[in-house]
């Protein structure tokens, strides 16, 4: 394994890992506040990817209720990404109202909430399929006119980074910086952290917990929508179910980092991205199993995650 190859794989791993990280942050934010895993996150990822596709003014295919339909306008890709993510954030609000609030109101078992969110996820993905069909879509190339890859090495020993990798890494970093700023430097962020620490106490201190929970779902949905579009830009939108598969992979990221731990989700995303990049070429077919193998091992060895603290069970 020479140095160029090593560098190349590290860059590939960081690019995809940064997307895993911001996707997983969507799970983490909700888990840190509600102690539940929001299985609809993968479905919201799908919705974001499809909404962006629609907003670019592209036409939908031959199957589904809206076959051949297209919006009468076309937005530039950056605005479509923003708009698609806002649609995803709204989907997050609907999910919170329909699947989470009723169960929270009656203090239901977290496992029941997990199953309920799975039900909503199945419904959302199939509504997407019902409307837009199951065929794959790809965005009209927003990077036209740019070189398809940038060479960070020399001509003799090339280290090629696809332009789209630069874009997804850049957008992910912007998201990460914005989220860090929101959480650590604003009053809202402080309130969010207080609710995550202790919901009852923060409610007694005059924090509107219901509003903050809703805000958490908005941010989480927005992050899900951004990731859906970025992955769609990188490898195409492979039908409504690709969000479910990606969503399961995101679970591996949050467990690796420690459930509900924000820096942990970022570290977990990067580790999984790098681990996938370093799967040897002859075992490439097994790459999809790598996140789950890591998830399984981490759960058995260190259930609190790499950065998490062990929880002591109180009686």
């Amino acid at each position: 394994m020479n140095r160029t190859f090593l560098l190349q794989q590290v860059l590939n791993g960081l690019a995809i890992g940064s997307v895993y990280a911001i996707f997983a942050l969507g799970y983490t934010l909700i888990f840190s506040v509600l102690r539940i895993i929001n299985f609809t996150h993968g479905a919201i990822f799908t919705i974001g990817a499809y909404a962006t596709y629609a907003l670019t003014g592209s036409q939908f295919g031959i199957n589904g209720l809206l076959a051949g339909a297209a919006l009468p306008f076309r937005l530039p890709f950056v605005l479509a990404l923003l708009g698609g993510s806002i649609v995803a954030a709204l989907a997050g609000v609907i999910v919170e109202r329909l699947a989470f609030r009723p169960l929270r109101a009656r203090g239901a078992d977290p496992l029941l909430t997990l199953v309920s969110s799975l039900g909503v996820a199945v419904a959302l993905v199939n509504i997407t399929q019902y409307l837009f069909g199951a065929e794959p879509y790809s965005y009209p190339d927003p990077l036209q006119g740019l070189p398809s890859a940038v060479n960070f090495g020399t001509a003799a020993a090339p280290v090629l980074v696809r332009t789209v990798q630069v874009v997804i890494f850049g957008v992910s970093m912007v998201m990460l910086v914005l989220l860090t700023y929101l959480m650590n430097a604003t009053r809202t962020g402080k309130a969010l952290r207080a609710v995550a620490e202790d919901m009852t106490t923060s409610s007694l201190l005059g924090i509107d917990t219901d509003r903050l929970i809703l805000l958490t779902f908005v941010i989480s949905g927005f992050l899900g929508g951004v990731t859906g579009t970025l992955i769609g830009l990188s490898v195409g939108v492979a039908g409504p179910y690709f969000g479910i598969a990606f969503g399961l992979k995101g679970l591996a990221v949050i467990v690796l980092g420690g459930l509900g731990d924000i820096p942990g989700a970022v570290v977990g995303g990067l580790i999984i991205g790098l681990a996938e990049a370093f799967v040897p070429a002859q075992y490439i077919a097994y790459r999809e199993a790598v996140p789950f193998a890591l998830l399984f091992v981490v759960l058995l060895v260190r259930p609190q995650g790499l950065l998490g603290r062990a929880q002591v069970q109180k009686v």
Partner: protein
Amino acid sequence: MASFLATYDFLLVSMVLAAVLALTLYLPLMAGQLSVASPGFYALGGYIAAIMSTRIFPPGPGLYPVSLVLLEMAVAAVVSGVLGLAVGVPALRLRGIFLALATIAFVQILGVVALNLDVTGGAIGIFGIPQPFSSAIQYMWLAVPLLVVSMLFVARLERTRTGRALVALREDELAAAAMGINPTYHKVLAFTTSAVLAGAVGAVSAHFINTWNSRQGTFDTSVNLMAFVLVGGSRTFVGPVVGGLVLTALPEALRGIAGVDVLPAWLAAFLRDGRLIIFGILIAIGTVFFPHGLITPGLLRRLGRRGARPG
């Protein structure tokens, strides 16, 4: 009756097999453990039957012997049980969400392995699995006894010391442990029993479906099983059985309703193509309004009293 059986033969057998699979999710849930590993063991059992019947036993003239199917079921059950024990002992130290996640990972890993091994036929899978019966409905000879035996087993289990220990673990693990119930032993027991049963169902299903590939026993199956148990009822074995039977028939019933002329065309089309949407909404509504499912022990007692009353 004969034409009904002929039209719905495939559906009826699928319903019975689904009911048995629903019981495999119910068993660990008796102890409060949400494990979605059984689709993995189901897939494994199917592969064992498919490989044994297409590679090991030479194809003879006429129908495939039922005795060999029974042998495959036994092998599938034993192998699934051993794997269940190997996975269960470390995994069942986890609880709640962590166990659910670990079992999701287990199913995903098995799926990727099945997709890539030569012996499982890769992406194409194994096809042309020999048929022990001349018509689909005759699979009832295998499916119904399997369902009856597993129902009797679970019904009996609910009334034994072990079954009560599982329920105690579900209600409060710490308190149960303090009273001398070994949590890990009982959870692994429930998990392994579920694996054995799922493996056996897989072996029958492989023959029944005639082809087996990595799309069998995936996360989708896990979601279906959860719907069977949580909509049907998670506090008595009758719930998962009824859930499996009814929810498997539901798409066909919806298709039937869609065929009625009175309905507007868009509604008919939705009932035909949108059944998974309805399925998802049912899971969500079920968990919100009926946290213990539609069939609860209380309901069964009321029905029992009404039946016993004269007149």
